[in-house]
């Protein structure tokens, strides 16, 4: 199994980049250009450092709660994720393009686009999915943000930082509504970027006193433990076995990109709230059996006149392959189709809790779980919209003339 690479530049490091001198040229460049270009309309290209500099976890959580509420009242809309998988000239590699879309009457629309080459690699005897764009270590994830009032293409944003923030924020929102109010111990599997963003979001909503963490590489979990001690001033126990993180944990967070479930329901204690992210995207069967109550943020609406299209699936994948080739080459991720592992009668909806129609957790002993549902599409306009406003006001981002993206020919 592969945990979110420590090679990923750490959130903390990125955040520390706020005052780094190497951001200065971008800012000066922009101010200089402003003078040169006069009132020329520009579209911003905002990178991860810019996002890290301006976007806080509180902003992200507020933006997401707002958009989930809007979706419930139909002021926002999104569609399920759609992927295309196409063979490359290397038979071990498959091109994957994926998009998510959504917007709201509050003012923004966004599409998130991912363009990567996928490879299946064995780590020990476990197949893991690796990906890159252009060359290993680089990825292409772009958000295009537009104005729904004018159609204007406002900005392209790299999605890496925002992606970690929004996934972390979802964990925080789930914790906020489902964990016990007195939750103070986190048990964590994984010590990569997602672990960092979840520490940020969970500490926003609960008074956390202790972290118990395990990840496969000792050096990584030790480094992460030290970082959390320093940043949050809480007790951190670095565990030598995954079972240890469950003991006394009020929140269990499995934050890996393993393709198989990494949780083990046998060790779950009563009252725990569970968060699972990553390629498998679901807890193990034993955990699922123990879940008393599962929070769902919502479901993507159905398209006009097609009430059954894409229902209950978190994504649709179109493949440029015959059936035989697809059976060999399609990534397991794409074959999987959907999540929604928990029994329907144990699901509570975020809108019902916010509007008081449902209580959520009703006892301290309940084991709870939260999952977003196929709402990814509605996340980007809200969070990217906020990041865009903050970056624009701070004078950050590269600029291209908006006129490059417009034309005087109507289709």
């Amino acid at each position, binding site marked *: 199994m592969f945990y979110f690479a420590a090679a990923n530049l750490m959130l903390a490091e990125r955040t520390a980049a706020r005052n780094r001198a190497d951001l200065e040229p971008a800012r000066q460049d922009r101010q200089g250009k402003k003078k040169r270009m006069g009132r020329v309309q520009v579209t911003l290209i905002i990178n991860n450092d810019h996002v890290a500099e301006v976007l806080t976890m509180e902003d992200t959580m507020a933006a997401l709660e707002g958009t989930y509420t809007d979706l419930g009242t139909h002021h926002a809309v999104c569609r399920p994720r759609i992927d295309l998988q196409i063979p490359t000239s290397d038979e071990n590699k498959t091109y994957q393009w994926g998009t998510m879309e959504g917007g709201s009457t509050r003012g923004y629309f966004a*599409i998130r686009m991912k363009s990567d080459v996928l490879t299946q690699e064995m780590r020990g005897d476990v197949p893991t999915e690796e990906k890159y764009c252009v060359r290993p270590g680089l990825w292409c994830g772009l958000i295009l943000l537009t104005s729904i009032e*004018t159609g204007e293409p406002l900005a392209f944003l790299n999605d890496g930082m925002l992606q970690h923030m929004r996934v972390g924020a979802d964990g925080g929102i789930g914790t906020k509504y489902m964990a016990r109010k007195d939750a103070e111990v986190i048990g964590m599997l994984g010590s990569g970027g997602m672990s960092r963003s979840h520490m940020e979001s969970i500490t926003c909503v609960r008074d956390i006193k202790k972290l118990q963490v395990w990840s496969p590489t000792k050096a990584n979990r030790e480094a992460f433990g030290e970082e959390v001690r320093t940043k949050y001033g809480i007790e951190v126990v670095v565990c030598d076995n995954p079972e240890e993180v469950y003991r006394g944990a009020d929140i269990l967070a499995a934050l890996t990109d393993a393709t198989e479930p990494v949780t083990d329901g046998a060790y779950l204690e009563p009252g725990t709230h569970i968060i699972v992210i990553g390629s498998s995207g679901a807890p193990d069967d034993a955990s699922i059996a123990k879940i008393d109550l599962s929070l769902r943020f919502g479901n993507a609406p159905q398209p006009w006149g*097609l009430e059954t299209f894409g229902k209950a*699936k978190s994504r649709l*994948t179109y493949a440029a392959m015959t059936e035989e080739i697809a059976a060999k080459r399609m990534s397991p991720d794409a074959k999987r189709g959907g999540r929604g592992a928990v029994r329907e009668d144990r699901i509570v909806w975020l809108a019902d809790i916010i509007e008081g129609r449902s209580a959520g957790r009703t006892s301290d002993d309940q084991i709870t779980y939260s999952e977003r549902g196929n709402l990814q599409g509605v996340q980007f306009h809200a969070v990217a919209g906020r990041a865009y406003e903050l970056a624009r006001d701070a004078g950050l981002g590269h600029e291209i003339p908006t006129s490059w993206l417009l034309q005087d*020919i109507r289709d």
Partner: protein
Amino acid sequence: MTLFIDNEVVAQVLTMEDTIKALEESYRSLAAKESVCRPRVDIQIPTSDPNKIYQWGTMEGGATSRYFGIRMKSDVIYERQYNGAITQEKYCMEPGLFCGLILITSVDNGEPLAFINDGVLQHMRVAADGGIGVKYMSREDSEVVGMLGSGGMSRTHMDAFMCVRDIKKLQVYSPTPANREKFAAEMRAKHGIEVVVCDDPRDIYRGADIVAALTDSAVGVLNGEWLEEGTHVVSIGGGSGKADAATLERTDVYFRFGNAPGPWGQPEMALEDEYITYAAEPEDYSGFRMKRHGRRGHGAALPQRMITFKDIFEGTNRGRTSASQVTYSERGNLQGAQFWSVGGLVYEKAKAAGLGHEVPTEWFLQDIRD
């Protein structure tokens, strides 16, 4: 470097012949499952002006070892009464400007290669489809074109028809006399053919081997009762691109290039629809008679008399079997198959010619994995 390629560059490098060739190859690869596309998906969101709606739309496709392309449209749409007819208008930022962008990536390494304005390419690809329909379905000795409409689509369709048939004569009608006269003069000069300007739409059908209805009218303009034996019909725009009942009634062979495949493992979700739409506040706008609002796009018009490229490439049905048959062609919901192929070609040619604005590709890449 990632290129930003504008319409002028596209017009400079892309020929109709190349467009037709690229599209035929794309449809062949789609039938062979070497490429893929999905139906168009739109998002509609009300603006703060109750008479205007934001519309975002995308089409996607790509081919093994070649290119992937997404076409994205970002516009504000509204309705306007014009000469008693309701037309759909749109703009991006200000009237007269539109946002239609194609992003081309490399299937082999994922690299974002180019953003291309879609205006010229859009007209070329639609006309090329008309030409492909004519190539496979019209009589080989077709030489007279009857045309309704004298705008941009009429110009590109003439280019396309000239590529595939030895056209000798054009009969054209459009509502504004000055426009049809100007168009006729232009076609005479450009193609060196006889052009008859008609004062009555009825006249364009007489003796026509190919009838092309090329308008953006909100209502249909074709009249199947006037079609003569052996005519091939192409229709875009008017009445959401669907022919009138009389034309469909008289059509012997209906050539639909194909249907977008269904998603993997969910064949029940294969759609014939031209597009699907997700809308915010759908309830509040159900009475808003937007051309594309609250309705599904049409699918296969005549399934019983339909043949597709798969039939042609596999040799099971080649379409027209007699000179007296009325034939009809339309693309089907394969728009997504068009942009990787034509856009990829534009990218190659623009790059080779050193054209287009350059932006560092690193701006679109990152060192954070999701």
